[in-house]
């Protein structure tokens, strides 16, 4: 990829050690984010998107979770072996994160102002007065008027959309290089979703910030992403630029995902849905994990796990369909 890579995730594996067995939530995931780029991780629930994000932030609780293998390089700094102190300096400062539920991500007993100024005190070492000015600026930046009033109000007095804007303001407070957004619009209603996405896009472009967006909403992906990583059962099954993925999806799962998306001006009785369910991550067989649900399955698919391979410039897929093609040619 490009030279100015900010985040490089190499062969990341995060497993959860539960009583029933080892859950391979993230299994050999590699991708990178370069400066100013928006990377989207897509997949259905339980495929390891959030765990990937949490692993990058090193927020996986140990036990039961553990990053068992791989490398996470942020500006060539190894995050997996970073000390607690280094991580604390990094979080909220260079990498910040927006969560899914704005309503529960803010402490109900502290005012918005108190919560926005916290990272400013912690990382930028501002005085109280400076922090307040900065906080008011941030509130205005995320498009909320009457910033002074908001500064003194409590989270329960604001709507979900406004709270998500506040979360964004908090995340932006220290001018991060990378913003990780874990389904930032899932809990919001559709009109607000569009506003929030627009805001994220604007701010990202203005500050030349990189963004790692986690979502299951392909509409969101089409709107903001530069590069897409499709995950299934903890593995990356396809990755490529947004154009490649939408125009020329290779993996049967990606094709299925795109088919199950409603299209405007096209009346269908029923939306397409991929039959079957995500396999239990505890006892995965050494086969393609999509085997049971795949329309194009072949004998080889049930026997061994396909490796990721380049099908196009910057477009990789893990599927036996294309391996065969390559072998043939």
């Amino acid at each position, binding site marked *: 990829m490009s030279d100015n890579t900010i985040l490089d995730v190499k062969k990341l594996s995060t497993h959860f050690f539960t009583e029933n067995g080892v859950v391979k939530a993230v299994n050999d995931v590699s991708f990178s984010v370069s400066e100013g780029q928006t990377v989207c991780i897509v997949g259905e629930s339980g495929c390891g998107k959030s765990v990937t994000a949490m692993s990058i932030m090193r927020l996986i609780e140990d036990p039961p979770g553990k990053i068992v293998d791989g490398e996470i390089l942020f500006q060539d700094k190894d995050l997996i072996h970073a000390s607690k102190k280094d991580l604390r300096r990094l979080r*909220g400062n260079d990498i910040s*994160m927006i969560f899914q539920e704005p309503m529960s991500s803010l402490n109900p*007993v502290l005012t918005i102002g*108190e919560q926005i100024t*916290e*990272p400013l005190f912690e990382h930028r070492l501002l005085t109280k007065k400076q922090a307040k000015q900065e906080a008011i600026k941030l509130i205005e930046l995320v498009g909320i008027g*009457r910033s002074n009033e908001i500064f003194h109000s*409590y989270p329960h007095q604001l*709507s979900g959309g*406004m709270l998500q804007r506040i979360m964004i303001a908090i995340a932006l407070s220290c001018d991060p290089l990378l913003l990780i957004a874990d389904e930032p619009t899932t809990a919001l209603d559709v009109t607000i979703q569009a506003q929030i996405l627009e805001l994220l896009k604007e701010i990202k472009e203005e500050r030349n910030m990189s963004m790692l967006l986690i979502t299951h909403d392909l509409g969101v992906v089409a709107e903001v992403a530069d590069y897409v990583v499709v995950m299934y059962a903890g593995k990356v099954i396809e990755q490529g630029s947004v154009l490649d993925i939408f125009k020329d999806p290779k993996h049967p799962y990606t094709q299925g995902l795109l088919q199950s998306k409603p299209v405007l001006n096209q009346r269908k009785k029923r939306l397409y849905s991929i039959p079957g369910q995500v396999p239990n991550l505890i006892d995965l067989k050494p086969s393609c994990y999509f085997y049971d649900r795949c329309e194009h399955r072949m004998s080889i698919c049930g026997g061994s796990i396909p490796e990721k391979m380049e099908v196009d410039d910057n477009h990789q897929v893990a599927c036996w369909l294309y391996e065969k093609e390559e072998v043939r040619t």
Partner: protein
Amino acid sequence: MEETTVQTEHMAKYRKSNLWKQVFRRLVKNKMAMTGLGFLIFIFVFCMIGPFFSPYANGGVDAININQPPSAEHWLGTDALGRDVLTRLMEAGRISLTVGLGAMVMSVFIGTLLGVLAGFYQGIVDQIIMRTADVLMTIPGLPLLFIMAAVMSEWKVPAENRLYIVMVMLSIVGWSGLARLVRSQILSLREREYMHATESLGLRDRRKLFVHLLPNIVPLLIVVGTLSVGGAILSESVLSYFGLGVVPPTASWGNMINAANSLIDFQNRPWLWIPPGVAIFLTVISINLLGDGLRDAIDPKMKSR
């Protein structure tokens, strides 16, 4: 941005009614709690300011007027040393209330600090703190206090300092219950999403503990703290009654009731032991009423307003 302007208009109304004002409003509506609060204020004023208006302040001994029944000069009579019982009652109230409040503040402080640490750090810290609390809870409180008090007497602690020693003793015995409560609250609070958010913002543990977690348990602390003042006053009375707490000449309600120990005083001179008894009874009952009222006012799960 239409949504935001509508929102902010709503907020102007909202801002004035924050949590504590709502709590206060609900508390005012509770008649029992207000009676309790009223009596507590009265007893405070009575004990703190009362002695300044008494001609018999500072324990003046009057050998001529001993064991006098209530009269115009001595409203509640005099004791065996000719001291005015009303004045002593007020002075004793100062001590008892101080001990009650002091012991509460100390045990709330210790209990909260240890409970928060145990709940937040878990693991070995939790084990050490909670096992210590368990050990304290397996020993009945009173015998433990008696032993500690006996040791104090052995070490010949001066009478003026006994007051503070009693406070420390009561808080040592009293912190464990609160620590457990606080710990269980913290255990559930630390898993909330906003605590994950603080982690992702790279905040220091100190900030997470005292800025984010502590304010969330303040309502609990207020209720438990209020209720524990009553308990502390009672324990102090018991200790002083047995001559192990605050010792004469310093007066406390407990050692004033000690007069009832002698059969003659008990039968013939009720003015010696009824006033401190009534004072303890009313104070503790008021504190409990206020505490219950506070709990109802603070608890958001309470349905009726």
